[in-house]
């Protein structure tokens, strides 16, 4: 046993008798101080040991020279007492929790091959001539060494098992569709498919012959990842404090010295007092004011939002579902409501170790949305100034385009359809009738547009002005404008679709009559039925009639359906543009390019060739089989970054290219435009599903102040069972 621990024990007993605790410690330190010298060497050793401790072996920076047996012990004691964690910025217990360990331990020595202490397990040897550390463990039969570059938490680098998620994860699956609508059907289909696959997966479970209960080593992988993340910071602390291993603290000063000191520090004290005054009285007032203004804005935003989301009945469409502008405004407001909360969470991050990686995605999201808004405003200002400068030109060009495409072109098409287009055998009378009808409506509409013409510049000016709130605003306004100015096409489409659908159904039933059958509505089946002769005759004549009139109606219907589709696609393009402006992962992309470690997409191992290192260690006669593995962090893939966009594209495709929609087109049923919620889910993915209420915000802000005042660290996940965890030497005992 170490003589000094005996001595310590004795002195401790004595000190206990005399109840002079400080004396005990002081004597102990004195003793240790008397014993050891050469602090620098010990620093390096300490560093080496501690980096050994973290279950993976860091390539030490420098070689150690002297070998002393009790060094490990002293460091161990230092660890126990906590000397090595002096004046650490945050409590060390937090890191213990994170790593699931009750305390730190010394695993072994490095570059001290000839020492053998029974408490130690590992000897590491590094050096220039061997590019990889040689590990020898007396009790290990096989050794598996994993080496890694420590992620630097100051740069917010970290590794994680599963890829970082840029979207906010608290979205429930959008099951809020009107029952019976197309989306609801699709949802049902998808759910059924998922059920089927789940059943299959359950069946797959039956195939496993023997279940393997995971050993604690296997279950500890996430903690290991946390330890990797913590390693850099801890190493910093330890390296800072390694000098304290056993150094005696300053003895207390004498009174005279105190006086001198106070006299010298009088000036500093004054400055300190003033500064203190400022921080204590002025700064809080300012921040209070700021908070109050913030809250006022929040209230206003709340009112706006309520107006935007008001719907007469739950299944009716709200204002934001109808118009893109409202949607845009709502998104902005929601972002505005969300920022303070985000900011507070980020502030909380400051109160903790840098290695806590839970809030990095929030950080990225927050700055991403800020950046986007900034970009949006910048582009918007440019656009808006341009528009305002030559609003008249824009206005008349828009008016020209409008009158050209939505009136003149339509008129020409209809009049073309009225006289046998492309050799189609249309029924002249019916074509003439329909054509006249539509032309009449178009004339009225064009008159309306003409009346609207003079106001167009003001409108454009307004749009341009609005674009100072961001380029997305005029785009939204423009898409609304488009949908307003093409109402007549929409109504034409509806009317022709109705006519076509009606004729189609009649033809179907008459065809059943033609075949001598009938459709039994009650039982949803085709019964054979014999009609009376007059029914047959009239039915047949009507069938012939409608059959010959069908092409005419189809041609008109197709025309308007195509124009309708064109408009829908135009609006879809605009919406996608909005989505880009609102959600482009700008910040993430920049990070990816700047330093891909900040966007971890998983981890990757690389097995290193070990032939040349097998026989480099002559001292150990038969080195156990050793495998060297590099642990690397896989950066997030671009596909994962743009995952939302793929989702959006998939959704649009599924909606508009589904057989259901084609069937609707074929049978003249009304093709519903894609629901805005689906289209904009992309943009909401950055926002919480349920925005924080005003009171919540208030509380958050106030508590925020309190937390910032007295540095009360906030701990999450306290659930770690402190199990002794000795390294990652996969030793076979």
């Amino acid at each position, binding site marked *: 046993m170490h003589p000094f621990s005996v001595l310590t024990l004795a002195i401790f007993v004595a000190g206990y008798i005399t109840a002079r605790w400080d004396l005990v410690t002081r004597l102990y330190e004195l003793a240790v101080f008397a014993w050891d010298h050469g602090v620098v060497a010990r620093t390096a050793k300490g560093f080496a040991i501690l980096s050994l401790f973290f279950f993976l072996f860091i390539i030490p920076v420098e070689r150690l020279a002297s070998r002393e047996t009790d060094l490990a012990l002293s460091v161990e004691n230092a660890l126990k007492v906590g000397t090595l964690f002096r004046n650490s910025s945050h409590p060390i217990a937090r890191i213990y929790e994170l790593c699931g360990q009750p305390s730190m331990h010394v695993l072994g020595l490095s570059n001290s091959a000839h020492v053998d202490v029974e408490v130690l397990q590992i000897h590491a040897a590094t050096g220039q001539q061997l590019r990889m550390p040689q590990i020898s463990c007396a009790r290990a039969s*096989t050794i*598996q060494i994993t080496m890694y570059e420590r992620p630097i938490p100051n740069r917010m680098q970290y590794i994680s098992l599963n890829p970082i998620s840029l979207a906010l994860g608290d979205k429930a699956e959008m099951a809020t569709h009107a029952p019976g609508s197309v989306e609801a059907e699709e949802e049902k289909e998808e759910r059924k498919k998922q059920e089927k696959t789940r059943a299959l997966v359950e069946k797959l479970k039956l*195939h496993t012959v023997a279940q393997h209960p995971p050993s604690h080593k*296997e279950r500890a*992988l996430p903690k290991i990842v946390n330890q990797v993340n913590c390693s850099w910071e801890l190493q910093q602390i330890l390296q800072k404090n390694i000098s304290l291993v056993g150094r005696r603290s300053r003895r207390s000063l004498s009174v005279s010295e105190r006086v001198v000191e106070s006299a010298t520090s009088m000036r500093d004290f004054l400055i300190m007092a003033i500064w203190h005054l400022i921080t204590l009285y002025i700064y809080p007032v300012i921040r209070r004011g700021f908070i109050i203004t913030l809250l006022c804005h929040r209230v206003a935003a709340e009112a706006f939002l309520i107006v935007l989301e008001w719907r007469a009945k739950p299944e009716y469409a709200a204002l934001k579902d109808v118009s893109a502008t409202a949607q845009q405004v709502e998104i902005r407001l929601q972002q505005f409501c969300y920022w303070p909360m985000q900011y507070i969470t980020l502030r909380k991050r400051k109160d903790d170790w840098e290695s806590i990686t839970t809030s990095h995605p929030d950080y990225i999201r927050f700055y991403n949305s800020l950046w986007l808004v900034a970009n949006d405003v910048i582009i918007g200002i440019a656009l808006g100034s341009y528009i305002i400068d030559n609003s008249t030109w824009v206005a008349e060009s828009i008016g020209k385009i409008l009158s050209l495409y939505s009136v003149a072109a339509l008129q020409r098409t209809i009049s073309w359809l009225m006289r046998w287009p492309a050799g189609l055998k249309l029924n002249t009378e019916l074509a003439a009738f329909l054509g006249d009808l539509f032309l009449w409506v178009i004339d009225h509409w064009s008159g309306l547009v003409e009346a609207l013409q003079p106001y167009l510049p003001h409108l454009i000016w307004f749009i341009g002005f609005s674009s100072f709130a961001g380029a997305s605003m005029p785009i939204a306004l423009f898409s609304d404008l488009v949908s307003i100015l093409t109402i007549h096409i929409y109504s034409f489409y509806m009317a022709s679709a109705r006519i076509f659908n009606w004729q189609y159904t009649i033809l179907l039933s008459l065809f059943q009559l033609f075949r001598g059958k009938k459709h039994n509505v009650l039982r949803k089946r085709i019964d054979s039925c014999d009609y009376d002769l007059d029914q047959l005759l009239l039915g047949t004549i009507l069938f012939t009639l409608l059959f010959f009139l069908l092409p005419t109606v189809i041609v008109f219907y197709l025309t308007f359906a195509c124009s309708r589709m064109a408009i829908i696609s135009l609006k879809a393009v605009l919406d996608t543009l909005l989505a880009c402006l609102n959600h482009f992962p700008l910040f993430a992309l920049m990070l990816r390019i700047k330093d891909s470690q900040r966007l971890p997409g998983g981890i990757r*191992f690389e097995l290193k060739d070990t032939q040349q290192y097998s026989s480099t260690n002559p001292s150990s006669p038969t080195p156990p089989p050793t495998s060297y593995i590099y642990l690397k962090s896989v950066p997030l893939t671009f596909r994962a970054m743009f995952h939302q966009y793929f989702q959006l594209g998939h959704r649009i495709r599924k909606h508009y290219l589904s057989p259901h929609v084609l069937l609707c087109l074929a049978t003249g049923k009304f093709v519903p435009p894609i629901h805005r919620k689906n289209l904009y889910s992309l943009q909401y993915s950055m926002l919480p599903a349920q925005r924080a209420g005003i009171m919540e915000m208030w509380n958050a802000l106030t508590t925020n102040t309190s937390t910032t005042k007295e540095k009360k660290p906030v701990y999450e996940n306290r659930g770690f069972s402190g199990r002794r965890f000795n390294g990652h030497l996969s030793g076979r005992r």
Partner: protein
Amino acid sequence: MLTTAPHLRTRRPSPTTVEYTVSTSPTLTLPLRLLLITTIIFRVLIGWSVLLILYSKYLLSNLAAATSTHNVQPETIVSIDYLYYILHLLHTSKPGQFATTLAALTPPTLLIPLSLVLLHILLQRPHTTETLLVLRGLGIQTSSSSASYLSSATTRFIPTEKVQDILVNEAFRGFEVRYYLVVVVEGEDDVVVVFPRLLPRRKVVESVWRGVRGCLWEEGRVGGLSAKGG
């Protein structure tokens, strides 16, 4: 000659770490290396010529009418002008003129897709290599080399606690029935196929299966081949 039938290479530095590599690349002998080098050079040459043809096509088209010609050598080496100058030299050189005539002959609708297809072909890797790395206590990592030189290998790491089971399965593939190795991952809908691109023969699959089970969970539980339907 560049590729062989997929064969298995095993690296097992320690009993707790195995890496199985199935690849079509033969063992590199000297003539083979030379052959590879020559093919690479060949590819590079063809690629450059295709790019040259495209560039001359661009020069021929009216897009390049505005750009001024940089036929005077700028004094500084590191500058855009120097780059333009080199391009100009290339364009005026003999192969450049040949490319110009060629580009002038072929219509762009034919030339552009053709050259794109050619570049795509040139970028294909000759070999495919797929590995399975087993680390006891950590997990399994599958990786398969990408088809083209542009993208790197895709890896997938599965922690041991997520690995529910490892099976050898049979399935129809084209006109034949193949054996393949799958990893059943907990909480995922579809299994992970090991060696997805070149499905090796049954012998290889079975040996890998045995090895993985032996390495991942303790030896001695290597039972008979469990080929199960998914």
